[in-house]
């Protein structure tokens, strides 16, 4: 059997053929050297789902190093705005200042990060590097509540502090700049603290721009991940009860039973849905009949945004970011080659 360069093979106990052989000098007569034209012909994108929060798309025909670079950049390099400084005036609730501040920091802020610049420690505050929020919540008795009421939400007013309580305080020109999309938390129902009558939280919050490298709260994604496309190879026709059993080894929709020559025959219809549980490899009767593989250069990418920036935009930004990085290094390397020749 010729050596399979394009697939990773899943066996019952191990995963084999992991390392990429997509390089020159690996197999006689097979070049696979780098060529931009070859990449262009091979590379393809398919978008499966897009929404404001989530996106799933396929990147086909690229190396894992590139795919992983995008993932890393999405997690740690694409900047967003997040609460960085909390000026606590009153906090008489049970949630301590530092715990409350930590919770506030993690709130995703719906503001376009490209409209801001990041602020270093000694920079003065301007409308370009800071967003100001005010939080002022006091819990009181609800006089209209029924006498025998036990639900704190009805018994008291403001017994729960939510992200929706944050009030944006526009600075200088911010009100006009963001008139079409006022700055606010992405979600209004994130519970921050609970209060009881007489307790109060009053603070001023400053948001700054930074990236996930600094603190995870700046990461624009809840997660960004990829997996390789599953491939299920049925080597020999599987019919009758065996076919039904095979179908049960996979999640629904992966294997279908079709009528072929008057016999029930198993057919893989959507390997993409498979979770690669390897259940099929546990059954002796399928030994040698079914092979589980993953396609080495087919990445199923999933981006889950925190909601501040749409995922499609995030990916575009990550490619841009990568390009900027490369151009910076390319410039430095070009200067280097001039030096060495001189």
């Amino acid at each position, binding site marked *: 059997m010729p050596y399979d360069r394009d697939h990773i093979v899943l066996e019952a106990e191990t995963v084999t053929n992991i390392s990429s052989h997509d390089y020159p000098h690996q197999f006689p007569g097979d070049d696979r050297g780098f060529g931009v034209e070859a990449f*262009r012909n091979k590379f393809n994108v398919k978008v499966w*789902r897009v929404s404001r929060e989530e996106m799933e798309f396929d990147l086909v025909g690229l190396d894992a190093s590139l795919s992983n670079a995008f993932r890393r950049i999405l997690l740690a390099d694409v900047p967003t705005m997040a609460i960085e400084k909390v000026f606590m005036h009153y906090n008489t609730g049970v949630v301590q200042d530092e715990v409350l501040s930590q919770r506030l920091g993690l709130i995703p802020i719906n503001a376009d990060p490209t409209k801001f610049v990041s602020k270093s420690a000694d920079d003065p505050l301007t409308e370009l590097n800071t967003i100001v929020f005010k939080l002022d919540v006091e819990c009181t008795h609800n006089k209209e509540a029924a006498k025998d009421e036990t639900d704190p939400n009805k018994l008291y007013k403001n017994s729960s502090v939510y992200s929706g309580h944050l009030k944006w305080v526009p600075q200088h020109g911010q009100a006009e700049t963001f008139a079409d999309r006022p700055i606010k938390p992405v979600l209004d129902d994130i519970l921050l603290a609970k209060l009881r009558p007489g307790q109060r939280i009053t603070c001023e919050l400053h948001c700054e721009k930074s990236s996930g490298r600094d603190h995870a709260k700046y990461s624009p994604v809840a997660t960004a991940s990829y997996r390789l496309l599953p491939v299920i190879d049925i080597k020999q026709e599987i019919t009758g009860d065996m076919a039904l059993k095979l179908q049960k080894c996979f999640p629904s929709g992966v294997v279908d039973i079709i009528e072929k020559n008057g016999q029930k025959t198993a057919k893989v219809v959507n390997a993409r849905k498979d979770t690669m549980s390897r259940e099929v490899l546990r059954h002796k009767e399928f030994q040698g009949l079914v092979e589980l593989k993953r396609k080495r250069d087919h990445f199923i990418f999933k981006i889950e945004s925190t909601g501040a920036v749409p995922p499609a935009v995030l990916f*575009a930004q990550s*490619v841009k970011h990568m390009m900027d*990085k490369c151009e910076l290094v*390319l410039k430095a390397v070009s200067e280097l080659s001039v030096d060495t020749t001189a």
Partner: protein
Amino acid sequence: MNAPDFYEMFTLPEGVKKVAVHRDAKQLDTATIEIQKEDHTLGNLISKKLLKDNRVTFSGYKFPHPLEHKILIRVQTTEEITPVVAVHDAIGGLISELQDIAGKFKVRLISSPMSILETTTRTLPIMHGGVFLYKLVTGENQINIFCLLT
């Protein structure tokens, strides 16, 4: 308290060059390229790209210490080119790949039917992150989404 400043991760100190070359004293066809303020993201990428070059015989990288924000890429080449030229070509190739990826992503996003877009842009267009994102309504409720890199 004695934590290193966050900006040390990506700002180049004055007088320090982004890229430096250390030639191997014993092997003339080998050099170590030191790139400041970069990590696995670029290190792995460049070293893997170098391997695809027919004229490169060895390439590997290391990120020597988590608090030293630099990478070392070791490159050995055949007589045809020098390691510096190999790195130059690899990054040049990477940039054209990235342009292709950005281009194709944009095209596929435009052509993805609106039925798979659950809740998208409410106002049109939305300027977001240097990218215009807006939906376009054409005949028979065919709606497309546009994403333009600026």
